[in-house]
């Protein structure tokens, strides 16, 4: 594989480019589905392709192919060079890259049992064990629609650049997608789309105890449908579970602190940011709030050690005790801000450019037990999970609609409530956090950004958090 990445680098160097890199991805993946107990098509995905990036007089060119012949590799170097050069007349600020160490290394996610050694039969067995626990007599609810999918993927990446970096990384990733619809006569339906995912081998699946996990989800949905009343509206206190804390950290901390968004590079797609370049040191929340992004957590869904620019990564503290402290950087934005890259440039496949992404974004745990968080609330709502959510393209105005949620009355959790709606600004949210729980949990997700779109595997999470005096409301058409 070494020659496949070295050849384009040498070809680009011969053209006198400022910088060139080549990246080969070899992907092996499969998907196994059980739909209402019936197998759906077994699916495989294979990909083997290469991308090059060249910097020519401050203009960036990218080209990619899955034809790995010498002629084709020469062709993509030529087209990257030619198109970059042709675009120079419209490059008002030449692109520069931060100076980084050129490592030569090998890294991988650890697996005890390789996903390649797991048979299709074993995968179906896992799904069938889950399916058995979704019977009405087990979950006390009728599930007319059940979809269970096990996805696995192993990516081998070889990276080389003109500065001498040579990185070979391997990531093995597995996830369960479950889509459940619970129905109750006279009560309608309720739906849950969830993911469980980690890097590693088949041992991850074995430790998840999926039949119990999914069955509990289904039982809860049935209970909500049968028992939940309208959520209260107006000003009150909220306790948000780890799943909600996680999506908040991802949407209104991680995304707005991506330096490419701050500079406007994603303006026509995923948008810009309320955060401006000079906002390092700006208070956005209470002292209880510290949010980090850390790709290096073993077995995390967003795990990696080197990014797709060959930069070693580590934990980034985005908000420390309520104050914005760090942005997510690539080499391009690092040079623009006068800092080093912090290894946030990811590309999800051979045919995508590296752009700034989160990996595992979460709020650091505090000192409170969950009982203490709830115990100090006289009138409020505990939102444990969510289904609908969104945020504006400056990451300022966001909405989370609870799925599993309960009233809090006089310090105790009481009856379930349906669809509580939190619609709030980013400083309004982080400025209302007065207490953070001890126990962090994480959810696997796929984050979309870039054009062409790149769905990056990420984790987000944290502990339960408490918000004081926020407005629960919104307006919903009752269907």
């Amino acid at each position: 594989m070494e020659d496949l990445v070295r050849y384009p680098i040498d070809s680009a160097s011969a053209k006198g480019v400022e910088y060139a890199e080549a990246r080969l991805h070899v992907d092996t993946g499969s998907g196994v589905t059980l739909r209402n107990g019936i197998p759906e098509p077994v699916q495989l995905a294979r990909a083997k392709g290469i991308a090059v990036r060249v910097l020519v007089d401050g203009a960036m060119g990218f080209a990619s192919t899955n034809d790995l012949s010498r002629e084709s590799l020469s062709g993509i170097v030529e087209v990257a060079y030619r198109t970059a050069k042709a675009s120079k007349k419209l490059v008002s600020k030449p692109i520069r890259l931060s100076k980084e160490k050129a490592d030569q290394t090998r890294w991988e996610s650890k697996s005890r049992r390789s996903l390649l050694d797991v048979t299709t039969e074993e995968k179906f067995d896992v799904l069938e064990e889950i399916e058995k626990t979704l019977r009405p007599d087990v979950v006390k609810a009728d599930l007319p629609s059940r979809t269970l999918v096990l996805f696995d993927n192993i990516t081998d990446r070889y990276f080389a650049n003109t500065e001498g970096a040579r990185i070979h990384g391997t990531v093995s990733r597995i996830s369960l997608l479950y889509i459940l619809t619970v129905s109750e006569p006279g009560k309608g339906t309720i739906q849950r789309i969830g993911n469980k995912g980690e890097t590693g081998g088949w041992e991850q699946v074995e430790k998840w105890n999926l039949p119990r996990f999914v069955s509990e989800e289904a039982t809860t949905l049935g209970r909500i449908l049968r028992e939940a009343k309208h959520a209260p509206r107006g000003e009150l206190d909220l306790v948000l579970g780890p799943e909600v804390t996680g999506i908040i950290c991802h949407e209104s901390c991680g995304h707005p602190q991506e330096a490419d968004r701050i500079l406007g590079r994603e303006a026509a797609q995923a948008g810009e940011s309320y955060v401006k370049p000079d906002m390092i040191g700006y208070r956005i929340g209470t002292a209880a709030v510290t949010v980090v992004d850390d790709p290096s957590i073993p077995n995390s869904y967003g795990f990696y050690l080197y990014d797709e620019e060959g930069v070693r990564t580590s934990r980034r503290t985005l908000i420390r005790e309520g104050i914005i402290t760090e942005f997510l950087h690539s080499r391009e934005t690092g040079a623009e801000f006068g800092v080093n890259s912090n290894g946030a440039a990811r590309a999800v496949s051979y045919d995508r450019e590296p752009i700034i992404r989160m990996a595992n974004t979460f709020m650091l745990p505090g000192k409170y037990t969950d009982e203490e968080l709830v115990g100090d609330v006289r009138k409020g709502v505990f939102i444990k999970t969510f289904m609908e959510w969104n945020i504006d393209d400056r990451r300022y105005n966001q909405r989370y609609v609870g799925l599993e949620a309960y009233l809090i009355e006089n310090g105790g959790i009481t009856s379930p409530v349906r669809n509580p709606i939190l619609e709030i600004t980013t400083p309004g949210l982080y400025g209302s956090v007065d207490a953070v729980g001890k126990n962090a949990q994480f959810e696997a997700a796929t984050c979309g950004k870039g054009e062409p779109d790149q769905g990056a595997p990420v984790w987000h999470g944290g502990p339960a958090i408490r918000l004081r005096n926020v407005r629960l409301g919104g307006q919903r058409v009752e269907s």
Partner: protein
Amino acid sequence: MEDSALNPEQIVDEAVEYGAKLGIGEVAAAVTRERRKMLRFANNSVTVVQSWDQTIPTVYMTWKRKRAGARVENPSIEALREVMKTLKAAMDIAKPGQVEPTLPKGPFTYEPVPQTYDDRIPAMTNELADVTEEAINAALAEGARRSSGIVLTSEWERFVKTSAGAEGGDRGTNIELSIRAFVTDDSSGQGNSCATRLEDFNPKSAGAEAGRIANQARNPIFGNEGKYTVLFGPAVMAEFLGRTADFASAYSVDLGLSFLAGKVGQKVASEKLTLVDDRRLPGGINSCSFDEEGHPTQRTTIIERGVLKTYLHSSYSVAKYGGALTGSAFYVGGTWGIAPVALNVIVEPGEHREEELFERVGDGLYLTNNWYTRFQNYQTGDFSSICRDGAFQIKNGRVERPLKGLRISDNMPRILQSITSLSKDRRWIKWWEVPTPVYLPHIVVENVGITRATK
């Protein structure tokens, strides 16, 4: 280095032949070869030019009520055979499904769709920057200060061959510009132009539209929650109606993720709405002559005067749900492999001039764009979506002032039922948030729920 990739005809021949050797009942093989270039720009400056040359084979197999499929972005005989052998082994041990789908029986004659290829488009290299400059300058001339977006050119060839006797080839070109212009951080507008031929492509008008909306949107104030009569610009309804066409796919219905499930023959929208998936439209952005099961494409009316006429179908969904093939089967991955998808979503026009629609709204809102639509429940259609770019209050039939901070919080079936007027003029919408091209007018909807953040 490796050997040169196989050509597409070799790949489909090999897949069908090897499938027969493995004893697989039916095989549909498709290969798309695509050469694309994309110039991305931000703040009036180019950020990167990207190019791709990819050959992407897919294979779909059915045998004894079992199905399997693969995307093989590694166009070599070894990779193809390894995948098909692995799939056959998986089918051997998998339990059979409920129905036995049968691939469409060929041979078929495929009539090429006119006006889908322009050899000047793939030849563009330096011209990408020229097109970008034209759009940016048009936005600046309308008062914008900075613009971001993309110019994309694409040339594609697709080949299909099935064990049921279908075989054919097709090709096309696309060019697309999407531009978002800003006057300040909270006053922005979007324009787009997409076409299969250069004479139908207009970067200048797209840039001017983006700049004009951004300029009109200067100094917005926060809007208020409530129920409004809303004039939706084509971009918003392209997102909603593109999704509606997706919900009409039998695949969405089967997954339990469609509010259209079980409603064929029922009134699901205002009688003003007729929604079509027309893959044979001359010059249609995604027009093509066959699907990836080898069935000829067609014009399929999904909703006719408010009544749901059919789901979009593949051979599997016809076997499971009944109905007729719609030439909609493409390899999507997901859980089905090959599944029915909408390609060219067309909304039949109304009878009003655009200006008349403002008068018909009287007092309400004009929303030009949106993003981030998410559903609470796909079967009921409860959802919300964020307004983006120019949003305006309409008073006495005229645009009164720009607004910000708004969210559409409503129910999709209710929105469809509450369409009251459509404009005569239509246009194509396709951009990052609307990946399936939609050709549609401005549309008025009554009693739309609007919310906003309050802290």
